[in-house]
């Protein structure tokens, strides 16, 4: 029974995966509207988009209806809605989003453009336009917004930029190895980041106790190639940490490993499995590999042995203890060794 169910699930998923290739998925019959053909036949934009020249910020979109088309095309070739095929749905969706997110009045632009719509809507001349909305660069051709750039205020056009959730085509694109690069890029440009990204963009990864909200956990069905914590991260994590010492600490607190390790019974208690290889701690000179590895990436040690677990180290490495001094080359500190943490743990009581 269980095998049959597993087979059925896999067969259904395989069929679903191939649906597009097999032709099960219905093809979208729509195509970009033939703006160029209409313009070359002398049809003015406002003949179909009636009322758009006097439209304000809140009026409807002034998209043509079937009745507008039948004004000229009196014998349509079938009875379906004209806009079902003529004009791509995503272009109309783009116009709706623009109405929703932007402060814009067509009527305010009539005198400057002398009623020439193509001056801004340049893409209507293209055969397969991605969008008919003017690009931001077109707006900046007239509206320089010089005073607003330094203050990162986009509100004169964008009602709520962070809610738009739309990467602008003519603006900053997060390409390359952005996961690694974003920190250094954001350091001097927090205002720029904040003009599109809200608080949750940072908190989803950089917050405390965010594991349930990590993109790899929450958006498991979205499978981009980038993302440190994606795929088999649980298997890789110790090697990822060793390959880039300190990297984990840039986001995680020093005790963030303990929750998982306790659940998986990996840790220092007698009933747990040790993650350390043979020869980690030995008696005699050198004391095994643990000293060298701890100096290379002390944050890995702190992940499990931080807090109260530090007493494990103090037992041997306190002043006069058998472990000797833990301070390696390059160690300098401004702390008072008998009063401040962590110095007093080993140097306390006049040691």
């Amino acid at each position: 029974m269980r095998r049959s169910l597993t087979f059925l699930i896999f067969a259904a998923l395989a069929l679903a995966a191939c649906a597009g290739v097999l032709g099960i998925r219905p093809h979208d019959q729509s195509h970009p509207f033939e703006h160029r053909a209409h313009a070359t036949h002398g049809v003015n934009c406002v003949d179909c988009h009636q009322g758009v020249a006097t439209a304000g910020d809140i009026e409807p979109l002034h998209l043509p209806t079937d009745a507008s088309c039948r004004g000229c095309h009196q014998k349509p070739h079938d009875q379906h809605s004209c806009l079902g095929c003529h004009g791509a749905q995503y272009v109309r969706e783009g116009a709706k989003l623009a109405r929703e997110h932007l402060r814009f009045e067509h009527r305010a632009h009539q005198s400057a453009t002398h009623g020439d719509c193509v001056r801004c809507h340049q893409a209507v001349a293209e055969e397969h336009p991605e969008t008919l909305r003017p690009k931001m660069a077109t707006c900046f051709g007239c509206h320089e917004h010089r005073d607003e750039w330094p203050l990162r205020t986009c509100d004169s056009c964008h009602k709520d930029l962070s809610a738009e959730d739309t990467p602008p085509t003519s603006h900053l694109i997060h390409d390359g190895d952005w996961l690694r690069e974003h920190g250094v890029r954001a350091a001097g440009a927090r205002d720029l980041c904040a003009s599109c990204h809200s608080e949750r963009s940072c908190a989803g990864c950089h917050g405390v106790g965010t594991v349930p909200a990590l993109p790899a956990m929450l958006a498991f069905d979205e499978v981009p190639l980038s993302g440190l914590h994606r795929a088999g991260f649980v298997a890789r994590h110790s090697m990822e940490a060793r390959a880039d010492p300190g990297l984990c600490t840039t986001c995680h607190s020093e005790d963030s490993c303990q929750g998982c390790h306790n659940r998986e019974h990996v840790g220092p208690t007698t009933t747990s499995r040790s993650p350390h290889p043979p020869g980690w701690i030995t008696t005699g000179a050198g004391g095994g590999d643990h000293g060298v590895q701890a100096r290379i990436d002390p944050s890995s040690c702190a992940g499990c042995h931080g807090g109260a677990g530090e007493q494990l180290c103090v037992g041997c490495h306190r002043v006069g203890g058998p472990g000797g001094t833990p301070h390696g080359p390059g160690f300098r500190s401004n702390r008072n060794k008998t009063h401040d943490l962590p110095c007093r743990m080993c140097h306390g009581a006049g040691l």
Partner: protein
Amino acid sequence: MQPWVDAEALVWGGAKPSVTGDVLVLALRLRDPKGHAEVRGGRFVLATGAIRPVQMDGAEVTLRAPWGSALESFGGTPVVPRFGARPYDWLAGGRVSEKVGVHAILGVSYLQRRADGEISDHELGADAAFAPARWLDVAAFGAYDLTSPGIADARVSAASRFDKFRVEVFASELSPGRLLPATSLFSVLGDFPSETVGGTVKWLAAPRLDVLASGAGQDVGGGLGGNGWLRATLRLDDRGEGNLGLELRRVDVSTAEWTGIRGVAALPLGHGLRFSTEVEVVVPDHPVGNGIAWPWGLMALAYRSRSGWEAAGAVEASSTPLHAYETNALVRLSRRWEAP
């Protein structure tokens, strides 16, 4: 909400193994509509200049001058999960920045953080961003530890775009001991920085095909190594809703030596349905009894309704050093509401 105020909350809840939840964001932002002054309060992630991101309960004030100067000041308590609290934990600091011409921003930052009243982080930082030409961006920051004097974290990145390529060179130096709180016993082990120098190239090989390659040399505690990866993404339609991807990766640093391959596929099925799958195989050079390869795979089906509801389900299977075989079923039901 209004041009001068916005509020945001992000809360999660779960039931594994017991009912739990937390507040990630609960923030209110007030600002002068002209952008000259801004106050942020509540729970949020503070990240500015060379100060590493820290989630805090507190407030931040930002003042900006029209000529490009800005002053940020903040104070509060670091967040403890699930509204816990630690007495005498607090942090405070600020950043001053200046825009130089139209091509550069320079900033200086300061942070002091205390744990149980004792200094746990005490850093001075500097950051800079230059765009001297349309084809070149350079950004850098460095944080200097004032408790154990030395560089805690420094990074620089320079990127250039031309034709169908984007090339980035980067370098970083991290001192893991200085990234830990100064109150940690593990912060006293000495200065063994981890240094990395590398580059990344992105090539738009075809309108729907991106190829990305990256390689870096590393000096980890005196041991030399390196890592590199090659990644290709093919979009199956102009909008990228369907895509195929493949990644090859090799890491050879310190005691981390492994090779990995990962593939992803996402296919829109129409009617709001979307199928996606992701497969990875990691082959460690020294498996030490934990299996010669660690495979991981996931198949997911998601549905998005026109009313805003989303449902997704997935089956995940893997073999890890801890478990020879493990399967998980994942389900998500979500709905997005937005206040006017």
